């Protein structure tokens, strides 16, 4: 597990080693040209930074040496001392000492003593001659044979990692294509090379994905403060328990769910947990418990927000939903379906608006973040016992399984995350109900709509009344599922199932929410990726 202290330590080390290397470089320049202004300025600045960072880390001695050297370089810069004679020897000894100290920090060893060096630096600052010992000189000559060291860490912009991941994704698609071709052609040498390429690109993909992983802790560790603030604003006592900080997940996924998690946590404290008095009255411990945990489940990462509060009052949600006219069928919905309503846009159970619960911003933020990742939300709740929200997240956003379908001779990709089943229906298995095509899947009525109709829908008019008069032969239906709502899409044909890399649509086309992005097929053909949540919403607003 990487705590923040560890992170700081690693940052400090990486930067200190970098500073040390630069110092050595600038020193040799000064040796050649004792009046090199830029080198002096840089040495002054590097000493200054090293001092400040070392002191912040609590390495007082290291900070002290850097501080003395900073002062000395300040004097040289202001031409009160010259870079010559014994001063040069002391400065080199000083920078060497810094190097040793930094390495000692890195190796978790005690810092070497620097008293003699500090005394000499003091003398130089005061304008006195330093006291050089023979042994010291001999030692420093021995030191010069020391090996060079580079930092073990590089900083990299997330953008660069994103780019790398996209490229690898495309490589994987082409690899699959080459594999297919090689099998078709049947040349053994080609096939062997293709298989080798297959393995290498697999390893490469894994490595790139691995480089993007961070511990969930970097997000979870931000919550103690949030919980404290919300709890004190709501006048509640809450104990926060964190676990699974070391579970690894793609950095961008963590970024995307940040707001969602913040919402769930605030919601848990402000609505889930009861006040101290209410808890006492219910015979529960007065301090409420909130657990934020991360765990892995097969290829997914689960992040759970669990409270031991009042639980979801299913009937109250149901009443509210009917009241709001959200759904006429609310009376018949099961518990899970009712809970799903909590994540509908604009739905809030808050009877009073507090600073914490926000104004009209509901849990739909959570649903939207998960949709964009192809994640899922699970809710478990027991009245009076508490509620657990579980975010099911992919570990990596690199490659998604998708089903390719064809409509009007163009391919479209639909992420498998949202596909339920594929059907070939005879016209007699389809009925027309209230202007809509409907079929039954496992006893449940599922509306059907030609995908082409949704794609070309324009303006505010509702979809035309369905008619099955011109329907002949088997109809290809892809049943998609979003938020427990099933919708059958009529397509011209199924092409195949394939792993795809989704590229976001760039401006100005990124405003069309029906498409989650594009992907390139092995042939170089551009294929639009359909956004099932947006398709479902479009269907719900436009159905006749």
């Amino acid at each position: 597990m990487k705590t923040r202290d560890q992170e700081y330590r690693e940052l400090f080390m990486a930067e200190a080693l970098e500073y040390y290397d630069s110092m050595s470089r600038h020193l040799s320049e000064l040796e050649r040209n004792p009046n090199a202004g830029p080198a002096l300025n840089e040495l002054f600045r590097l000493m200054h930074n090293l001092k400040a960072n070392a002191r912040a880390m609590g390495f007082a001695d290291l900070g002290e040496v850097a501080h003395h050297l900073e002062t000395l370089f300040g004097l040289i810069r202001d031409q009160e001392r010259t870079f010559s004679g014994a001063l040069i020897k002391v400065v080199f000894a000083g920078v060497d000492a810094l190097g040793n100290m930094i390495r000692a920090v890195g190796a978790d060893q005690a810092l070497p003593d620097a008293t003699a060096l500090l005394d000499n630096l003091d003398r130089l600052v005061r304008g006195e001659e330093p006291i050089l010992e023979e042994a010291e000189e001999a030692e420093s000559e021995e030191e010069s044979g020391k090996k060079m060291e580079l930092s073990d860490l590089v900083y990299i912009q997330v953008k660069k990692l994103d780019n790398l991941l996209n490229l690898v994704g495309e490589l994987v698609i082409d690899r699959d294509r080459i594999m297919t071709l090689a099998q078709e052609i049947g040349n053994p040498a080609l096939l062997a090379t293709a298989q080798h390429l297959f393995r290498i690109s697999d390893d490469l993909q894994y490595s790139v994905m691995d480089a993007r992983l961070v511990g969930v802790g970097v997000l979870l560790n931000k919550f103690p403060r949030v919980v404290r603030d919300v709890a004190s604003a709501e006048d509640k006592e809450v104990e926060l328990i964190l676990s699974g900080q070391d579970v690894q997940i793609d950095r961008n996924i963590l970024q995307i769910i940040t707001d969602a998690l913040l919402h769930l946590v605030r919601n848990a404290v402000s609505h889930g947990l009861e006040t101290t008095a209410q808890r006492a009255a219910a015979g529960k411990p007065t301090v409420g418990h909130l657990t934020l945990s991360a765990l892995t489940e097969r290829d997914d990462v689960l992040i759970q927000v669990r409270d031991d509060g009042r639980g979801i009052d299913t009937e109250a949600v149901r009443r509210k939903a009917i009241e709001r006219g959200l759904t006429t069928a609310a009376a018949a919905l099961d518990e899970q379906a009712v809970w799903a309503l909590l994540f509908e846009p604009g739905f809030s159970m808050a009877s009073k608006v507090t600073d914490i619960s926000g104004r009209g911003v509901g849990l739909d933020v959570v649903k939207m973040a998960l949709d964009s990742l192809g994640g899922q939300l699970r809710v478990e709740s027991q009245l009076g016992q508490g509620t657990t929200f579980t975010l099911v997240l992919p570990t990596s956003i690199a490659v998604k399984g998708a089903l390719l379908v064809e409509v009007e001779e163009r391919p479209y990709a639909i992420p498998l995350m949202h596909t339920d089943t594929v059907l070939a229906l005879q016209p007699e298995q389809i009925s027309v109900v209230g202007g809509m095509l409907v079929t039954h899947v496992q006893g449940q009525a599922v509306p059907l709509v030609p995908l082409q109709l949704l794609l070309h829908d324009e303006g505010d008019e509702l979809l035309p009344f369905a008619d099955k008069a011109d329907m002949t032969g088997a109809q290809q239906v892809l049943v998609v599922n979003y938020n427990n709502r099933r919708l059958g899409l009529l397509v011209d044909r199924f092409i195949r199932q394939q792993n795809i890399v989704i590229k976001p649509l760039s401006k100005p086309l990124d405003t069309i929410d029906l498409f989650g992005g594009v992907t390139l097929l092995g042939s170089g053909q551009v294929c639009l990726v359909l956004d099932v949540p947006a398709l479902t919403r479009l269907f719900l607003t436009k159905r006749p």
Partner: protein
Amino acid sequence: MLGHSLNLTFPNSMNKRILIVDDSFYMRTMLKNMLTDAGYEVVGEAANGAQAVEMAASTSPDLITLDVILPDNTGLDVLKSLRQIQPSAKVVMCSAVGQEVIVTEAIENGALAYIVKPFSEEKVLEIVGAALQNDASEQAA
């Protein structure tokens, strides 16, 4: 992993936006963690004067923490540019012990306060909070 940051916005942050200017990645990270934990939004991190001026113009922060010693420019020159392009942004200088002369000059040039490194979280939040409540800079501008 290092270098990755997450932007959280908090209920009580009042959405104050802060730009951090410091040439040490370690310092910037520490400051950023302290500030974002307290609910501020860190809108940018600049490692030198040129970046600072550019980011101040593009992000219009409410407050800028400015290191007195920067690689391409002294912090003072940067301060003067910042005061010109973003007169409404409050500037808090960050300095280690021994830079008192520069700090005094910085205050004369419109910086509101200074934080002495190494700093504690409480101190940083106290100074930043106080600077944000101080409207003197706006009246002066």
